[in-house]
C-alpha cells in the first residue's frame, strides 16, 4: 500500500555534537526510568490494593486513612463473599455461558468461512458484505427488541437466553476467512485427489492446520463473553442464574458488603483472566489485534 515517505528525512546525519548528546541521552534515560516508574506504580496500585484489601480485616480496611498493608492476613472476606452471593454457582454460569458461546461461534464461523472460501456461491460478495454489515450494528442499539423477543419466548433468566443471540459472529467469519484464504491450493488439490470430500477436508485438514487463528478467535470470544455486562444484567433476574460479572455488581450493592468482601470477590473473579494475561499474552495479542490486520 502506501510507501514510507518519510524515510529519507531520517537518513540525515545527526547535527548535534557527540559528547553533549551522550550526556543528554544519560539524563534522558533517567527521565525515562522516572516516568515509567511513576506509571507502573499508578497502573499497578489498584491491582496491588485489590489483593491487599481482600486479606484485610474489615476494621482495618475501613480505617481512615486506610491501611496499605494487611497487618494480619485473614480469609474471612473470601468466605464472606461466597456466603453473600452464590459466587461459586455464578462462576460456573460464567464458564458455561462463555464456553458455549465460544464453541458455537467457532463452529458457525468455521462453516461460514469455509463456504465463502471453498464453495461456489452466487452473489458471494453481497452475502459476505452482509456478514460484515452485522459488525456495524452496535449491540446496545438493538438490545431492546432482543430482550423482548427472548423474554417473549420464556427464555428470560435461562442459559438459552444468555447464549442464543451470540451463537454466530460476523467477526469470526471474517477472521477465519482471512486465515483460510492463505491455505495453499496444492494441499487442497492433493486432498481432493485423495478422495476427501468437503466435510472431511474441512475438519481433518483445514481446521487442524488453522489452529493459531482458531485459538486466537476462541480467546477473543471467550474473553468478550466472560466480560459481558449489559445483556446478562437485563436477561437474568435470580442470583442463581446471574453471571459472575453481575454477581460482583450485586455484591457491591448488597447490604452486608464491606470493601474487603467486595475485593475478595474481585480476586476470585480475576484468577482465570489474570493467568491468561500473565502467561498467555501472545495469544491474546493475536486474538485482540486480529481486527487491526487488514
Amino acid at each position, binding site marked *: 500500500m502506501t510507501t514510507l515517505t518519510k524515510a529519507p528525512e531520517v537518513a540525515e546525519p545527526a547535527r548535534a555534537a557527540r559528547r553533549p548528546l551522550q550526556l543528554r541521552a544519560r539524563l534522558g534515560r533517567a527521565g525515562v526510568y522516572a516516568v515509567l516508574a511513576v506509571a507502573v506504580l499508578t497502573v499497578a496500585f489498584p491491582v496491588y490494593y485489590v489483593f491487599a484489601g481482600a486479606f484485610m480485616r474489615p476494621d482495618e480496611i475501613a480505617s481512615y486513612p486506610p491501611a496499605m498493608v494487611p497487618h494480619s492476613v485473614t480469609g474471612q472476606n473470601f468466605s464472606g463473599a461466597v456466603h453473600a452471593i452464590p459466587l461459586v454457582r455464578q462462576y460456573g454460569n460464567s464458564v458455561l455461558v462463555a464456553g458455549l458461546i465460544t464453541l458455537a461461534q467457532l463452529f458457525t464461523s468455521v462453516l461460514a468461512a469455509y463456504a465463502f472460501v471453498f464453495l461456489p456461491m452466487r452473489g458471494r460478495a453481497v452475502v459476505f458484505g452482509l456478514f460484515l454489515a452485522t459488525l456495524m450494528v452496535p449491540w446496545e442499539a438493538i438490545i431492546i427488541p432482543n430482550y423482548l423477543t427472548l423474554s417473549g419466548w420464556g427464555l428470560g433468566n435461562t442459559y438459552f437466553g444468555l447464549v442464543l443471540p451470540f451463537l454466530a459472529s460476523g467477526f469470526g467469519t471474517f477472521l477465519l476467512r482471512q486465515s483460510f484464504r492463505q491455505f495453499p491450493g496444492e494441499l487442497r488439490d492433493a486432498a481432493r485427489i485423495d478422495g476427501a470430500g468437503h466435510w472431511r477436508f474441512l475438519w481433518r485438514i483445514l481446521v487442524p492446520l488453522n489452529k493459531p487463528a482458531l485459538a486466537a478467535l476462541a480467546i477473543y470470544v471467550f474473553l468478550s463473553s466472560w466480560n459481558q455486562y449489559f445483556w446478562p444484567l437485563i436477561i437474568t433476574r435470580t442470583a442463581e442464574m446471574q453471571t459472575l460479572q453481575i454477581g460482583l455488581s450485586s455484591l457491591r450493592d448488597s447490604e452486608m458488603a464491606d470493601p474487603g468482601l467486595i475485593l475478595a470477590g474481585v480476586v476470585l473473579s480475576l484468577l482465570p483472566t489474570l493467568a491468561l494475561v500473565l502467561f498467555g499474552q501472545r495469544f491474546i*495479542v493475536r486474538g485482540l489485534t486480529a481486527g487491526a490486520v487488514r
Partner: protein
Amino acid sequence: MPTASSPPEPRRRLGEHGLAWAFLLPSVVVFALFILYPLGRTFYLSAHANDLFGAPSRYVGMKHYTDLLSSADFRHTLVTTALFVLFTVVPGVLGALLLVLLMESRIRGVRLLRSAFALPFAFSVASASVVFSVFYNPASGVLNGLLSNLGLGPVGWLTDSKWALLSVAVSTIWMNLGYNVLVLSAGIGSIPGEITEAARLDGASGLRLARSITVPMLGPSLFFLVVISTVNALQSFGQIHILTRGGPDGSTRTLVYSVYEKAFAYGSSDFGTASAQAVVLMVVVLACTAVQFGVLERKVHYA
C-alpha cells in the same frame, strides 16, 4: 482466490451450491433473528407509543424523535456522551503510546514492565468498576485517604457532579490501558528491525526516532485503537451502571445509559422513547466510524 482448482462438473457444482448455503445457514439464522429483525423492530418501536405494559399501542410517527430534540435533558445526554468519548479516548491512546515509546528506548526490564502495564486487561468492566467504587468511596475510600495525607480533599469523586464523569473516565482509561499497551506493543514489534536499526545507525534516537519512524509506522495500530476506543466509549455501560447510575444530576448519563434507563430501570418500560434513543446511538456510532475512516485513515501509513 489463491487456490487453483479444475472446473468441476455441473452436478457437483449444484450440490456445492447447496452445501454453501447449508454452511451459511446457522449464521444466517442467528443474524436474522438477533440482528436483522431487532434492527427493524427498533425502528418500529421508536415510532410507536406504549400501552401500560410496554407493548406498542399506536403509531406516533416521528414524535419520539422530535420530543428528544426538544428535550434539554437529552441534549445534555449527548454532550455528556461526547465528553466521555473525549475524556477516555484521547488520554487513553496517548498515554499508552507514551508508555510504549518509553519502553522502546532500550531499557532494562521491558518484559516485566509490559506485563505490569497489561495487568488491567485482566479486569472486566464489572470487576474494574467495583474496585474503583471502593477507591472512590467518599468516606472510607483509599483515594480520599491518600489525599488527606497530603492535607487535601475530601473530594466527592462520584457524588459531586463536577467530578463524576471524570472519575468514571479515569476508571475506564485504567481499565483499557492494558489492552491499548498490548496492541501498540504488538504494533511496534511488527516494525521491521532493519528500519529502526538503520535510523539508529544514522544517529536518530529518542524523540527523533519516535517522531520520524516509530509513530508513523504505528499508524495502522493507532488508527485501529482510536476507532475501537471511540466505539467502546460510545457503548460504555457497565462502569456507569456500577459507579454512578448516570448521576449525580445526570452528569454521567450517556446515550447507552439513557437507553437502559428508559427501557429497563425503575420499572419504566418506555420502549418507544428508549428505541428512538437507540436509533440515535446507532447513527452516532456509524457516523463516528465513518468519519474516522474518512479523515484518519488517509493519514495512516501502511507498511
